[in-house]
């Protein structure tokens, strides 16, 4: 089977600094893949490259959404990549703080709607139908994520864990085939982390989406992921199933350092 996301020899230079060096990574359909590595290893750079915020220096990013043909998406703008079906969340929460929770999710639906300026002013039948649908669809997504109680709350007033979940809800609203989560458990308490774990599982099992996850919390990574990629200094140093990674000496070295021979 063809991977839905296939990254080949992706390289990113910032001036003279090579933040990412010939990285290969692939995600299969309905798979949860984790990308781990010490701080500064280049994980978020990788995310920014494949979502179009940065244009990679070299390499290929190929996607083959279920039921569609394979295509190369290097250098596309972020909004086009989202339209193609890859949605992300951010390491530092980036909600629309002064908009309501529902509106945040409605923004996610934006690229799947098509009423323009004239439609908005005239407000014909199709616009009314679309607006009605967007409210209902967004509410359904909130129900799925478990945020329905906050519908009309302003996003910035939500508790921290709920804000993280809202980011996921917003990403889900764009109808992605692959969802990219950048440290979703950062700053969460154990209870919230458990709920998040359930949620990610549900995204895969019930919604049938693939998940690519950057995470530092090893408990989540080990219990959720089907496969793990490990990065250090911009390079991939290992890949495999959780059990393989746990016992990989290179990974242990990268995380804990090497024993010094006296």
């Amino acid at each position: 089977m063809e991977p839905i996301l296939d990254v080949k020899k992706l390289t990113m230079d910032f001036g003279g600094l090579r933040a990412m060096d010939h990285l290969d990574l692939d995600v299969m359909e309905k798979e949860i893949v984790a990308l781990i590595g010490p701080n500064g290893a280049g994980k978020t750079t990788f995310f920014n490259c494949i979502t179009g915020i940065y244009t990679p220096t070299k390499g290929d990013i190929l996607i083959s959404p279920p039921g569609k043909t394979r295509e190369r998406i290097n250098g596309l703008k972020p909004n086009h990549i989202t339209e193609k079906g890859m949605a992300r969340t951010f390491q530092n929460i980036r909600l629309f703080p002064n908009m309501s929770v529902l509106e945040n999710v409605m923004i996610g639906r934006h690229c799947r709607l098509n009423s323009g300026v004239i439609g908005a002013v005239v407000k014909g039948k199709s616009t009314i139908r679309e607006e009605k649908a967007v409210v209902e669809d967004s509410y359904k997504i909130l129900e799925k994520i478990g945020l329905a109680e906050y519908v009309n709350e302003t996003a910035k007033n939500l508790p921290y864990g709920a804000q993280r979940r809202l980011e996921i809800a917003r990403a889900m609203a764009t109808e992605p085939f692959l969802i990219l989560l950048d440290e979703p458990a950062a700053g969460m308490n154990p209870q919230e982390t458990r709920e998040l774990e359930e949620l990610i599982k549900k995204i895969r099992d019930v919604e049938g989406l693939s998940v690519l996850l950057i995470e530092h919390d090893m408990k989540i990574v080990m219990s959720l992921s089907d496969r793990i990629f490990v990065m250090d200094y911009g390079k991939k140093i290992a890949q495999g199933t959780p059990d393989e990674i746990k016992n990989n000496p290179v990974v242990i070295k990268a995380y804990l350092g090497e024993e010094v021979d006296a």
Partner: protein
Amino acid sequence: MIKFSEIKKSFLVSLWFMFLTFPIMVIRVNPIEKTVQWRWRNMMIIGIGSFLLSFVWRFMLERKESGQKKADVFGIHKISFIQRILQEPKIYIPLLIVTGVFAIVFPFIFSAYQTNIMITALMYVMLGLGLNIVVGLAGLLDLGYVAFYAVGAYSYALLNYHFGLGFWTVLPIGAVLGVIFGILLGFPVLRLRGDYLAIVTLGFGEIIRLILENWNEFSFGPSGIANIPRPGFFGIEFSLQSATNYIYYMMIGLTLFTIFVVNRLQNSRIGRAWMALREDEVACQAMGIDKTKTKLTAFALGATWAGMVGVIFAAKTTFINPASFTFLESAMILSIVVIGGMGSIIGVVIGALILILLPEYLRAFSDYRMMLFGAILVIMMVFRPQGIISNVRRTYKFQGKQQ
């Protein structure tokens, strides 16, 4: 019980004010008799006055801050008194009817002079609503908005002068030219945000004004263009009085039209995209919103109204020159938006009426009116930065489900 430290603070404030105002309020030099008059009484008044005012100031600040803390802790939406009125149909429907009737009979009750002032105020309502799209909704600080206003005014003046086109023909042309210039300004500033954007738009406004001032062959320079015809009505010529009334009713109609369109835009897919752009540009793009298109539509649709009001301005005053389109004008429109409440339509309408009508009716205190105006701006920004009526997020109710 007033603390000693509070008294000390106020005492220092009053000392400082007495020192600052000493040269202008106390010393009076009489150059003819070559004497110096010392007005110590003024100093005493300022001292006591600033001592007391500083108490009021601190009391108000404290009250505001404690109110905010309460809202933060309990997550209460603080809905102001005015907003509650606006949400209660029993109150706002009669209010709307009274306002409507008042607006219709206005020219019959008041003099032509008053009607003229009202026309100006309505023009600023439209300008404010237009700028509100750019600044309030899309969050793009535009300090050169007056440029589009000038484009509209000159398009009517010049098209009429050279080709004899009438008001109603040029009104849509002015709007279209506004759109074109909006996009023209939009392109170079696509990558800019915040302070940088403000400076470039400020430059754009000045460029347009300077072109109009110096390109004599095109715009007749500083001497301007005179004898611009007033709007006609199927070829009927009006007397001055009825022409004023005619423009007044036309302005009422156009203002209602603007409110209607801006309201529709605000609650649409485009309006949401603008707000998302204002809140977080990176996240907005990551959610599939085309940043370029969204910014350009904001500039273009904002400029449309300025272009139209420009045409009306030229027709109303029958004379225009570049001096009407200075930065001060942009600043005035921006103040309307900020004081009225960014992103709030009713706020902008009220803001425009207050800011334009207040100076007119304060002519009796003409010496102090700009000072009062400045003081209102400062006090508003300290105590109510969200504007007179802040924008409330629309709430949705879901049947049978918990709301």
